[in-house]
């Protein structure tokens, strides 16, 4: 079973599979996620791809327990996610950092999950080193550049050594340099054994990072295939059009 307050208790075998069954999310009468069923078992990078409004963020939010299904289920290894779970972290497109030092931002996250204070220095130093922020540890978080802020955002997730990291369009607001460093970080995270699920509308990014692709369009799952198959022989007309750079019409 999952433990919410210990950070090393769960191996990835425990977090996966992610099982989504007949998931519906409706708001104001609009079906924003419409009957999604899928299973993710592989411990690498899954990219949720699709145009704006496809339901990518909503699916990620549901996977972190920030949204509740109107119908159907989403479970990590038979467990319904709650935002308090320390084994899983969520990265927003635009980070909201606290008005305190980089280090204090990381201490805050550890304190939220009741981590023993004697472990703070080693956990924080490791996260800072991984994200290249060691030199900026005492700097105020709010004065960092956009790219540095997003790296701190990722450090804030990483410091808990989560089994799963969910990222919602993590580079949408960054320049090419910032994007490259975040993509590099995401690859490192995956290589070290953390399951990554991220959304993007950027085909190039999906191509560079994805092991498998969930292609959403208008709240429906159009394709779930390996990245190789998706880019070489997309099964659906919608995906073919998307890859070809055509505007997608409503059904």
């Amino acid at each position, binding site marked *: 079973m999952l433990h919410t307050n210990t950070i090393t208790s769960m191996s990835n075998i425990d977090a996966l599979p992610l099982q989504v069954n007949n998931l519906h999310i409706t708001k104001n009468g609009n079906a924003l996620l419409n009957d999604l069923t899928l299973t993710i078992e592989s411990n690498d990078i899954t990219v949720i791809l699709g145009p704006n409004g496809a339901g990518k963020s909503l699916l990620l939010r549901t996977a972190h327990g920030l949204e509740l299904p109107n119908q159907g289920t989403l479970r990590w290894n038979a467990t319904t996610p709650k*935002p308090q*779970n320390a084994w899983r972290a969520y990265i927003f497109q635009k980070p*909201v950092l606290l008005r305190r030092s980089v280090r204090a931002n990381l201490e805050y996250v550890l304190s*939220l*999950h009741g981590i023993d204070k004697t472990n703070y220095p080693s956990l924080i130093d490791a996260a800072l080193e991984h994200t290249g922020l060691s030199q900026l540890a005492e700097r105020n978080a709010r004065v960092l550049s956009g790219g540095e802020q997003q790296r701190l955002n990722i450090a*804030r997730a990483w410091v808990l050594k989560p089994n799963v990291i969910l990222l919602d369009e993590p580079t949408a607001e960054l320049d090419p340099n910032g994007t490259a460093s975040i993509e590099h970080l995401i690859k490192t995270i995956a290589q070290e054994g953390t399951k990554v699920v991220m959304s993007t509308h950027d085909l190039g990014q999906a191509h560079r990072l994805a092991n498998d692709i969930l292609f959403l369009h208008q709240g429906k799952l159009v394709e779930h295939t390996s990245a190789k198959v998706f880019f070489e022989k997309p099964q659906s007309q919608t995906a073919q059009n998307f890859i070809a750079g055509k505007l997608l019409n409503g059904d």
Partner: protein
Amino acid sequence: MVLVLNDFSQAFSKAFQLIFHLDPALLEIIGLSLRVSMTAVLIASIIGLPLGAALALYKFYGRGLVVALLNAFMGLPPVVVGLVVYLMLSRSGPFGVLGLLFTPTAMIIAQVCLITPIIAALTRQTILDANVEYYEQLRALGAKASRMMKTLLWETRFSLLTGVFAGFGRAIAEVGAVLIVGGNINHATRVMTTAIALETRKGDIELALALGIILIAISLIVTSIVMSARHAAYQHHN
């Protein structure tokens, strides 16, 4: 017109005389003014900051009514507050046995009643605004409601200081409440505002104006000290 200008120039020279001679009676009055109002601000902040934050973040039955009352109480007439506190503390009142009427403590109680709504209402608005930015992020990080409240209070500390100072300004400047519950007793409960009222009534306009000038100067000094401290801290953090 000439007469008024003359009054003012004489009042300024009187004010400087009083200050430079460190008039002991004046120092006593200034000291009590500051002690009463600063203590009141401290207590009102201890109550008002968490109260305002809780009203912003927790939903409960009757919250709308509490918020409406709080906003209405921001403009409470000091004399009415003084009168109510007077009735509570008078011999026959429910807290009469404490013997607090006509003491600085009674003045502090009255000022706390006056300014707690101001601090709480301004805190509520500040926290509401900040919550729009922080809520999703803190929730995704796994923060529970009580922790969110503490975090938001700390994150908005520079803005909250403005509300606390609005409270201080009202406390140090009001005369109605402290006059009724304090009684303006020389060497006991006389503060700047009650002394000004007294000297005006006695006809010593010059002294009254001099005291008024000093009162304004003190408010300016206290406010600028805190604002520059706030500015320095803000620079450090942003």
